[in-house]
């Protein structure tokens, strides 16, 4: 067992429980530093200088349970001994949602994979929770079917993982959040009880959506699917943000709802051009990708809508069908801009769609003020909201500059907040924004659920409900402002 700050009789119980779990799972459990270290981070390369004083991200044990029964057995032992448990599958988020805050056990759920049952008549599929969206999409597509919606990280994101996040992405505009598509789920509660949940059960299914793995471990889901209809793709370009946003708003609310509506701002298109990945002949301006799926008559009506909008617009034009198809084909590769980094920092904002234009105007001002190339892209996730990513380039090897760069992320969120937006996802790093994300009443309700299902606070501790002392909103705001002040005094650093 690696070094840990445990002492005394209670801690002996923890060590014994860990050894028991290790014995039970044999080669599917490890405490080797070589393996554990990779479970101490997610996508975000946050420097140890910042992480280590706040959290103990190194797990004591990583276990790969084979089924729900094994998850249950582990949770029972962990619960009895008071060991924190952090569930993890795709680990494709950036807020340490799947990273331990207090050591303990990481449950690597990736063995819970595969399709359990396909019901083609009723258009549902039952899957094990760590199946990735890419795998499910491939499985369904080869049978003439498709998921209703998928995250933009589909090749790596797990089905259970997306459910326990907010579950909005590609296709959500037309088909709603993942929660609305899930008909039933199998969940292992923090005390180890295995429960089948539905929208009507107690606790109900919706408690677990966006709960970030803090209430239970989802091991199986039954979700609605669709026929894999033909698609049609359009890519529009305009030098004028206002005009392209106008098209976006009309298309979003027109008779045929787009499957996907993705926009890219001028700064981002310029960055793509510099990197050689912008559509041919495009070096700036805004892009709007509109993707439809449906029956031929729906596609024809959609085409008419898009064509008539472009016809009356002064500056909006069609890019080639090949460019539109390529944009669609690259939908899971938004990280491609990172080649210009090597690192990226940014904020993902759950923004009211009608605020997009004023938000981008303020982001442009912020970029000017900070001498920062702020690139923005995102997609419309519901009739009311868009998931908007505003990012800039950084270099994680320049630790001081990088930490200072992190302060600029707050500036992005501040702009989003002014326009009715808030961070998309909480994890650890967005806990200082809890007051923006939830009303006081809602937060109290969420905390009550946690108290009821996980009174010991052992499942994915540190996430979602409370900020750690050093990340309380006041300290956080002052700290970030100080860092931003240092940046302006020292002249910008390597973030650009």
């Amino acid at each position: 067992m690696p070094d840990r700050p445990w002492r005394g009789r209670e801690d002996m119980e923890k060590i014994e429980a860990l050894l028991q779990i290790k014995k039970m799972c044999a080669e599917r459990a490890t405490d080797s530093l070589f393996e554990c270290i990779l479970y101490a981070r997610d996508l975000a390369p946050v420097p140890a200088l910042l992480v280590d004083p706040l959290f103990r991200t190194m797990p004591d044990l990583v276990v790969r349970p084979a089924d729900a029964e094994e998850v249950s057995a582990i949770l029972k032992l962990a619960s009895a001994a008071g060991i924190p448990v952090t569930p993890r599958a795709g680990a494709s988020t950036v807020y340490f949602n799947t990273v331990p805050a207090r050591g303990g056990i990481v449950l690597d759920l990736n063995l819970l994979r595969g399709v359990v049952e396909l019901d083609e008549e009723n258009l549902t599929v039952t899957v094990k929770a760590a199946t990735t969206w890419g795998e499910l999409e491939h499985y369904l597509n080869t049978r003439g079917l498709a998921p209703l919606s998928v995250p933009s990280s589909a090749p790596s994101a797990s089905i259970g993982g997306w459910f326990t996040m907010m579950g909005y992405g590609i296709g959500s505009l037309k088909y709603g959040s993942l929660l609305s598509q899930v008909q039933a789920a199998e969940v292992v509660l923090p005390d180890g009880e295995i429960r089948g949940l539905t929208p009507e059960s107690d606790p109900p299914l919706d408690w677990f959506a966006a709960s970030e793995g803090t209430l239970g471990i989802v091991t199986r889901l039954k979700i609605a699917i669709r026929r894999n209809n033909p698609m049609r793709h359009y890519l529009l370009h305009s030098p004028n943000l206002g005009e392209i946003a106008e098209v976006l708003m009309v298309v979003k609310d027109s008779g045929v709802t787009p499957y996907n509506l993705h926009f890219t701002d001028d700064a981002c298109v310029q960055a793509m051009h510099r990197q050689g990945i912008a559509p041919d002949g495009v070096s700036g301006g805004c892009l709007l990708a509109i993707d439809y799926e449906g029956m031929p008559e729906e596609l024809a009506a959609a085409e008419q809508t898009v064509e008539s909008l472009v016809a009356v617009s002064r500056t909006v034009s069609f890019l080639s069908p090949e460019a539109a198809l390529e944009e669609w084909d690259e939908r899971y590769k938004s990280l491609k801009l990172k080649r210009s980094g090597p690192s990226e920092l940014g904020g993902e904002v759950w923004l009211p769609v009608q605020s997009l234009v004023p938000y981008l105007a303020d982001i442009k001002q912020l970029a000017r003020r900070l001498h920062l190339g702020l690139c923005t892209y995102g997609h419309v996730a519901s009739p009311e909201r868009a998931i908007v990513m505003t990012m800039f380039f950084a270099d994680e090897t320049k630790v001081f500059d990088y930490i200072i760069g992190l302060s600029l992320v707050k500036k992005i969120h501040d702009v989003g907040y002014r326009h009715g937006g808030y961070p998309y996802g909480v994890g650890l790093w967005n806990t200082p924004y809890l007051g923006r994300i939830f009303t006081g009443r809602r937060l109290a309700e969420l905390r009550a659920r946690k108290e009821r299902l996980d009174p010991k606070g052992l499942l994915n501790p540190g996430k979602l409900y409370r900020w750690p002392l050093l990340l309380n909103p006041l300290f956080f705001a002052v700290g970030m402002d100080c860092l931003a002040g240092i940046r302006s005094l020292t002249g910008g650093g390597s973030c650009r």
Partner: protein
Amino acid sequence: MTPDDKSLLQDLEKESLICGRCGNCRSSCPVYRVIGWESASPRGKISMAKEIFAKGHQDSLTGDFARRVAQCTLCGACTRECATGIDTRNMWLELRRRLCQMGQEPQAYDKIRDNLLARKNVSTFDNEDRLEWAQDLDEEPEHLDRQEGAEVCYFVGCVSSFFPQAAQIPLAVSQLLMKAGVDFTTLGGEEWCCGFPLLGAGFVDDAREFARHNVAKVKELGIHTLIASCASCYHVWKHDCQEDLAGYDLEILHTSEYLARLVRDGCLEPQPLDEVVTYHDPCDLGRNSGVFEAPREIIRSIPGVSFVELEHSRESSLCCGGGGNLQSVDPDLSAEIARFRVEEIAATGATVAVSACQQCEQMLSAAIRKAGLPVRVMDVSELLLEAVD
């Protein structure tokens, strides 16, 4: 990565920093699928490479890391999936090269190198015996050994030349070429290993020497069309010999491409076969070289054959487990990867599983035997010969 795609790989340090750890690579990695630990995933390996090489934490370079670097089939599935466009396949080769320079390579790699330097082939036989397989031909072609100015040179490859279980491939290719009236030759005892095992082990300079030798011999014979039945030999000729071939007119084809051409031109006329056939894309021929259609064209040209695609095919084909020297460092892992592929073959109901690489054929044959499936495994040339005969 197709031959027309330019590798974006700049240097290991920069590329490891560019990796976004998104994990797109992980789902498609056959090694991760079997081992299951994050350290076995491409993003895990890059993460560790970043610490060691980009951040200078050389003390993180452990035997465990070296083992993980060797546990890779170089199948290129991760390259295809990478969201940031990292040429991960070349990154693994570069990592192996560095580990060799630091003396951290697996012992098995040293054995491969010592044997190759001594014998010029991967077997324990003398390189002059390269054409022994031809003794099984009813009629040995007249100009099989180093015929100057031949229309086509067949680069047989070490495994097909020396291992009896793979000899059916050169026998089938030769018989088909003879039936079609093609004037062909081989490099005979002057054919050296293509260098792929050396390249895959990190001995880049040695691999270059082997490639240079083969290129020089082809030039000496005045050959302008070269065909290879081994997918990895083909990949080396197509991608790694280009510098030495600069200014020399050499058409490089996989045997499946050349045979498909002969069928198209009416030089070979397949007769009906009553078989359900599926096709396994070799990684170095398909995903890593862009040749998908030619073997399928041959299969479809055979009347009576019912062709069924595997669940994962073409660019998203699953590896057989036999690439990247994996068999020499971790044969159990290789076999386990093959088992997954065989599950897909079984699901098609095929009576014949065809591939276009002797290594794939060997891996799949062993796994099919172990699974007790009533499926024959054949090279595409063997299937065509059966139809032409």
